[in-house]
């Protein structure tokens, strides 16, 4: 069953400035999709179009069978540079994720946010400010904020690229663990990345984009069993395929 459908999306900034040129793919239920492409090909913009933050110049986004415009309650977002508000405590930052849930009372929001922070391993940091956290911890708050509203679709914009490799690895495995054990309510994930290994490690499907104006060059399914062995032949072959496609 299709969760999110990207149908022939185009985006341009002006007559000679086409960034995205007719991109189509979908993310089905329980599917982890990576979008990968060369720098400047507009993949971050594409993600923002799906999120409803940017209006495309052509095409439409389908969510749960309906064409949508603007932001939706069930679609959440994790930012590359965390985007935490420095003047709110970590708990308050996570609570922001509940803003669209009008029927929820303050007490319930506090509880949900606390539980989510705990799930991300940050209990004890509820009432401190983001500036005491390391990069990895900040991104955990960002993820907690994105998940606290029980979204169906999680969009992630290069979520690990601002972190050092060790922290990123830890965070990746945590996410894989949670997704595998269905600890998180999320059904589908669309992640933008430029890290091929990460894409092959995490996704069920990789959408490979060309350089700007970007089109879909290939959509590759990955059927390897999780946890994936990064040194297995299948894994490396898959990486080679992606690299080769990107190089063309």
């Amino acid at each position: 069953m299709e969760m999110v459908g990207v149908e022939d999306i185009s985006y341009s900034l002006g007559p000679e400035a086409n960034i995205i040129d007719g991109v189509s793919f979908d993310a089905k239920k329980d599917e982890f999709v990576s979008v990968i492409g060369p720098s400047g090909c507009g993949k971050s913009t594409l993600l923002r179009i799906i999120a409803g933050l940017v209006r495309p110049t052509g095409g439409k986004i389908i969510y749960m069978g309906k064409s949508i415009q603007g932001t939706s309650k069930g679609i959440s977002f994790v930012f590359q540079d965390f985007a935490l508000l420095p003047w709110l405590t970590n708990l308050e930052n996570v609570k922001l994720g509940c803003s669209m849930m009008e029927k929820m009372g303050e007490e319930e929001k506090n509880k949900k946010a606390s539980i989510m922070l705990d799930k991300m391993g940050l209990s004890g940091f509820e009432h401190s400010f983001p500036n005491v956290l390391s990069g990895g911890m900040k991104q955990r708050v960002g993820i907690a904020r994105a998940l606290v509203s029980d979204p169906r679709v999680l969009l992630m914009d290069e979520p690990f690229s601002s972190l050092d490799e060790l922290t990123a690895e830890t965070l990746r495995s945590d996410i894989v663990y949670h997704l595998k054990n269905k600890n998180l309510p999320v059904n589908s994930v669309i992640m933008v990345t430029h890290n091929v290994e990460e894409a092959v490690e995490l996704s069920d499907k990789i959408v490979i984009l060309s350089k700007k104006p970007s089109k879909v060059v290939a959509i590759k399914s990955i059927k390897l069993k999780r946890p994936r062995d990064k040194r297995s032949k299948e894994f490396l072959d898959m990486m080679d395929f992606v690299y080769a496609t990107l190089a063309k």
Partner: protein
Amino acid sequence: MDFISLIGLIIILVVDTASSWLRMFAALAVSVVISVSVGIYAATHRKAERMILPIVDILQTLPILAFFPLVIAIIVIPFEGTYLSLGINLAVIFLIITSMIWNIIFGVYESIKTLPQEYSELSKLYGLTRLERLEKIYIPACMPRVVEQSVLSWSIGLFYLVTSEIFSTGSANYTVKIGIGSAIASPIITGNVISYALALVIFILFVVVTRLFFFKPWEEYATRYNKHVEEKTSEIKRPSYVQEMGEFGTKLMKRLGSERLVRIGSRLTRSRKGGRRISGYADAGKDYDELYRLVKYGIIAVIILVAAGVVALRPYLIGYEAMVLQALVFSFARVWLTFAISLSIGIPVCVYLIFLTRHNSKYLMFFQILSSIPATILLPAIANALRGTPAYGEVVALIVFVLSSIWYIIFSTMNVAKTLQPNILEVKNIFGVKGWEAWKKIYFKAIIPGLITGGITAVAAEWNASIVAESFTVGGTIVSHVGMGLGELLDASLAANNLVLMFVALINLTVMIILLNTFVWKRLYRRVSRIYS
């Protein structure tokens, strides 16, 4: 008025305004040179930094305008006789310079301090001489801030120019003869409305032309040195801090003209997750905080001791001191009341400009032009319009105070807003934060640092403006005045030629402002910046 005399009037007014503008440009040129030198020197020499910053900090809070009569007396003395008007012009230019340099110095200082460490390492590796470093690294690096602060300094300088020129007409001997001040002053005295209106229109025209044909091209020229790439729509993510540094660095190093440098530079910035960042003098490193505080408190202590000593030696001064303190209380109340009014207007305006509209560059231009019109120039019109109403002097003073301070609040907040993460609006949109929650959790809290730094400068500006706000004298005639206040006292003592009283008032004012800044504003700023950094 017939056509010929109208043309004649316009020509005279244009000449008057043009000569005032020449003074402004002279002041700006000198100010930029001084500020860039001092700023770069302070940012690159640790020992000098610890002395220069506290001194500049104190000097910038001094109510310069209050010292104007003193300045005239000092500078003009060697220029008696035929060169008198040259002396007066120099005095006015000096005054304008002292109003312009402080924020440019801090802008330069901050832009150099936030340069990544790699640049000084590069200079050492490639053996760049001091001149080369200056030419290829420091000056381009501080250019954008110099332009940005010059626009603000221009508005500030205009205020001082107009006010000091008009003020000087009060003393028959020390008038600035050709300038906007006398152009405004004579119609006030003769009651010539057409002349006044024309002078105002020509003034505004000059302001707009300067903004469009001098500052705008300069701004556009300086953007090539910008670290940030402004995207057309605010929703497209701007490059992260690291990427921006990288882009800036590669551009800079291409200018240095070496392929090897470009490759090394991009490798260096790519592997760094975040450059070293020191965000300005208020929260700079602890290691020179000790000396900084020592110098600051030292200066304050010296002033108080000297003043106390003088008062002890001349008992009659105690009477003056009592007068001054009384007047100070009244002015204090006025200043804080009008500051509250300015805040209540400025906050919604700023929130609108920063968060709720995408056309902020157009609005900013509009506000910049609006703010360039000094309150002083409108005083005659305001005073005239309100003449006869109860508490007329107080209302005039209140309006002038608000007009003086509101621009500082708006500009400072807008400037700080530039450093806000671009994702804030995206966060607001994606998580659907609306209404009162958005105001409480996002808008208001985001602008607090800007309100504080704006507040310091706004209140200082109000104190400066008190000279004209509380008692407006033109050509010897008092146009409007309040019952009791510090500005009023200063003017009265000038008129009575009582330099001792003026001096006592000035010292009290200076000490009060320094104490307020050190123990109220800076503390507030330090506490806030710990959360916001």
